């Protein structure tokens, strides 16, 4: 049994999502290889070689993989993946994009978003926005899986795997990258932050998110948002926490001016400690909060900032 893990990276840095997917692979058991597909991604391969439990790193360094276009990466992973018992990627927007393509090319199902490994063919995954957890068993010869990274602890960087070139070049030639607008932030990203403070519609505008940023800076926290706050244009889309945004499970999650709709809870209810600040005592967010503060956020947040 050999497992192929597809690394998550930006050609320069290996993301900690990969450390967590390797942890899921280790829970399945067997030999673990990591595929680093990108362009000029040698440094990433060196980082991947340090992940505990990994025996081999395959590097597919080719311009066709630079932007992780699903058409090209999907072909590569289906090609290399034939030799493996399991193919795993993070349930990130990259993993969700290319991996189902590879699964279809291999004519096998994909199991999305696993949160637990029970056996090499049996996994748990949430559905219905996390209101139910299914234990599923796959009869496919190759198990293709995306991993909910918030459910696994990163492996250490104590390994020293061999790094080999995978010279499979696949360019489907049907899609091209035009550009991207990435939000740059000094704060920890939501996937790795141990504290997150999120704002909702109650914040009223984007300017008011500065209040949350100040608190975040004192706590070393990441800043998130509800869909309502993103839709209203207060903050960029990649800050959305929830069923269809980021799924997070930090040590501390502070929800400010967020009502607690099912879809928002789906993204944060596995946080260790939840704090809710809301002026409506009936807000459903209080039903999942460890500490609730019924208050006007425009009083409470500046006071919190002053007292930290």
């Amino acid at each position: 049994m050999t497992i192929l893990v597809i690394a998550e990276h930006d050609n320069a840095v290996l993301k900690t999502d990969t450390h967590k997917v390797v942890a899921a692979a280790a829970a399945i058991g067997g030999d673990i290889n990591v595929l680093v597909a990108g362009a000029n991604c040698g440094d990433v391969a060196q980082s991947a070689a340090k992940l505990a439990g990994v025996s081999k790193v395959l590097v597919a360094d080719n311009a066709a993989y630079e932007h992780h276009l699903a058409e090209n990466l999907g072909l590569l992973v289906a090609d290399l993946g034939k030799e493996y018992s399991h193919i795993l990627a993070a349930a990130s927007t990259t993993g969700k994009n290319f991996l189902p393509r590879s699964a279809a090319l291999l004519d096998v199902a994909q199991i999305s978003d696993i949160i637990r490994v029970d056996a090499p063919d049996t996994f748990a995954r949430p559905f219905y926005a996390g209101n139910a957890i299914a234990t599923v068993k796959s009869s496919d010869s190759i198990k293709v899986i995306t991993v909910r990274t918030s459910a696994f602890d990163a492996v250490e960087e104590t390994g020293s795997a061999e790094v080999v070139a995978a010279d499979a070049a696949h360019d489907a030639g049907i899609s091209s990258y035009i550009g991207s607008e990435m939000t740059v932030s000094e704060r920890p990203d939501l996937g790795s932050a141990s504290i997150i403070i999120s704002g909702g519609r109650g914040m009223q505008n984007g300017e008011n998110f500065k209040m949350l940023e100040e608190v975040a800076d004192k706590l070393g926290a990441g800043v998130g948002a509800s869909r309502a706050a993103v839709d209203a244009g207060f903050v960029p889309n990649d800050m959305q926490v929830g069923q269809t945004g980021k799924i997070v499970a930090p040590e501390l999650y502070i929800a400010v001016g967020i009502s607690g709709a099912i879809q928002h809870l789906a993204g944060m209810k596995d946080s260790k400690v939840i704090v809710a600040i809301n002026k409506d005592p009936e807000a459903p967010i209080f039903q999942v909060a460890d500490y609730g503060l019924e208050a006007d956020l425009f009083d409470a947040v500046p006071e919190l900032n002053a007292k930290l």
Partner: protein
Amino acid sequence: MKILVPIKRVVDYNVKVRVKSDNTDVDLSNLKMSINPFCEIAVEEAVRLKEAGVASEVVVVSIGEKACQEQLRTALALGADRGIQIETSEKVQPLSVAKLLHKVVEEEQPQIVLLGKQTIDGDNNQTGQMLAALAGMPQGTFASEVKVEGDKVQVTREVDGGLMTVELNLPAVVTTDLRLNEPRYASLPNIMKAKRKPIAVKTPEELGVEIATNIEVLKVESPASRSAGVMVESVDELVAKLRNEAKVI
């Protein structure tokens, strides 16, 4: 150009489902069913492309029991031209859904297939990508903007960290994210008109697709429940609890 929009009948997004006491599944009896919100956004986008003169016909297709004709009618009332129901009482998994849709794509030859990025019951987020692979088409997933230019389509995608724009050769698959548009409400005259629009019924056998069950559900459970904690009276008390009791700051 023709646009094909696959839609799924799912439990309404406002409903909080419960797990059956025998842990075999969730209990959907007597719950309100609706068109999957992401599919509704896909229908809206297709209709807008038609209104803008880019598309000439919008065909909606749903795989499921007869009841899913309700959701096809909803889509027809929103402006789609005709419907196709693929009748089955089985729970069809994404790979088989994609295979069925691939057959429909071969018959209909659409230039764009617009799907939802995910269903809110299965939360799979796979079908569009699988269909694209089977049909050899490029894909623009999690779209927040779709622009057709000649024989190409530019799709702005919502990705971790921001937005990414890709250009795809047509025919292409596009899957919708929440911010692509805000679906309209169907007007009464359009609901009446929709009743006369045609819905063709086919079966998986007719399409020559065997519905596979590669994945068996062993059990379904409720998530570990979280109980409400305490209400604090002041910011001071909150800070004290976080420092001394929870020890998280």
